[in-house]
């Protein structure tokens, strides 16, 4: 505890004048766009990133802002701009291209919404969107997000600990794992209608119960202070910052507590490439690419912004004890 206190003061504070607000970002983008259009009116519309991609979510949320110091909830690394978070996504239900979710996720209905909680709990039931947004104390968490594809972002999420949700439904002594499921509504999710996709929808993810109850494990309902854009997993998604991004399942409709380890989508598809644990680990490469470093986005032509990947994505102090005695090269 004493150690933590000292840490709290060792992190330099950023002057509020140094932080760029979202509106300033958007204005800057408008300016850049206007400049681009003036320079080349004919090809101005030929951009990979459409107007839709720039929408960054909806309603403002009521939350406690992140402050430096407490157990990995904050980082002073430069946050990835909201437009980039909203335009560069993996959400295969809308297509496998990075821009597809931003283009097509608006087709998904996110209100009304509910999460069904079942399995090894004393009080199974449903949580409706209103209960999710207003039934928990929302707080901001500034986390690093490391994708298994070797790119990363820094994201200011808004949400509440998953533990708070699970406790409400009172897990029984038998509960050892938590299984999550994404919405599967094919008429609103064009990626799931692809005949050549080899994912067995709905998308499924899972955590061990102690991982799920860890204070870093967040149920997120917003980013940059506003409700999530659909393409980022609206209205509610999981964020597990020390694991590869695919563990942080989006647009959750079901949570089930189980006795046995649930089958998860990527592990089922390619068990050699994606493990159940999927802890960020620079020492264990993906069979098809290295995990030793990552491109921190935004990356540019002349500055790819390649940085070294850290064990547990830099959250080792908080989570390493969960895996004591485990061979992480085997349980990847």
């Amino acid at each position: 505890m004493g150690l933590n206190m000292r840490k709290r003061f060792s992190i330099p504070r950023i002057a509020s004048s140094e932080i760029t607000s979202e509106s300033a970002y958007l204005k800057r983008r408008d300016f850049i766009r206007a400049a681009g259009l003036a320079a080349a009116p004919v090809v101005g519309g030929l951009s990979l990133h459409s107007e839709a991609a720039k929408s960054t979510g909806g309603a403002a949320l009521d939350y406690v802002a992140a402050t430096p110091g407490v157990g990995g909830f904050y980082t002073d690394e430069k946050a990835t701009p909201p437009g980039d978070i909203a335009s560069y996504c993996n959400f295969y239900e809308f297509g496998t291209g990075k821009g597809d979710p931003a283009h097509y996720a608006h087709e998904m209905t996110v209100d009304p919404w509910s999460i069904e909680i079942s399995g090894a709990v004393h009080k199974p039931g449903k949580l409706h969107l209103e209960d999710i947004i207003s039934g928990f104390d929302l707080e901001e968490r500034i986390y690093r997000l490391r994708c298994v594809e070797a790119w990363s972002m820094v994201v200011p999420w808004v949400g509440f600990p998953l533990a708070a949700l699970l406790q409400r439904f009172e897990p029984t002594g038998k509960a050892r794992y938590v299984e999550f499921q994404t919405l599967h509504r094919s008429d609103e999710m064009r990626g799931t209608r692809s005949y050549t996709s080899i994912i067995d929808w709905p998308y499924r993810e899972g955590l061990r119960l102690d991982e799920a109850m860890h204070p870093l494990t967040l149920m997120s309902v917003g980013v940059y202070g506003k409700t999530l854009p659909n393409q980022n997993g609206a209205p509610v998604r999981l964020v597990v910052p020390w694991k590869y991004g695919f563990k942080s399942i989006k647009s959750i409709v079901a949570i089930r507590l189980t006795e046995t380890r649930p089958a998860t989508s990527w592990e089922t598809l390619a068990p050699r490439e994606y493990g159940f644990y999927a802890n960020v680990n620079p020492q264990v490469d993906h069979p098809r690419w290295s995990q030793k470093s990552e491109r921190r986005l935004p990356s540019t032509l002349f500055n790819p912004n390649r940085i070294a990947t850290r064990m547990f994505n830099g959250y080792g102090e908080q989570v390493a004890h969960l895996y004591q005695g485990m061979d992480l090269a085997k349980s990847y």
Partner: protein
Amino acid sequence: MRAGVFALCLLPFAWLVYSAATAGLGPDPAESIMHITGEWALRLLLLTLLTSPLRRWSGWPVVLKLRRMLGLYVFFYASVHLMSFCHFYIGWTVGALIEELAERPYITVGFAAWLLLLPLVVTSTRGMQRRLRRNWRRLHRLVYVVAVLACCHILWQARSDIGEPLIYILLFAILLAWRVKRFTARQKN
């Protein structure tokens, strides 16, 4: 005609340069640059293989005159693809390149395809064609090996949706089948 095709083939690259200059490639230009250059290298390779059948069907000799240019464009896009990989993914470090080549078969295969293009580029001039005579044709059959390797490369890197790689493989299979059919027909006569 040739100038027009030359300009057309340059379009994807011009679009990349324009987008990169106007930040239109988004937060991760590496991804789109790798994708677009790799895809166009393969598309142009298939187009190169289409020139012979196209001349047969249409009877236009001019089509064959485009073959060299198309082939050189394949090398151009493949080279930009490889250079982007070196720049964005391994930061121009030889050690990292060797590690990637040794440990990741789809990169080994892709790199081999690029290497096999080199002798074809070097011998693409008319002078070399004359000097090598019959051997020139034999040497340039390497293009089929390159195409097979390129197909493996794109199929191997797919993560969950193999639709696009399958389209390219199917097109290549059709082009190959046409040649096999012609070859067996000639054997019979």
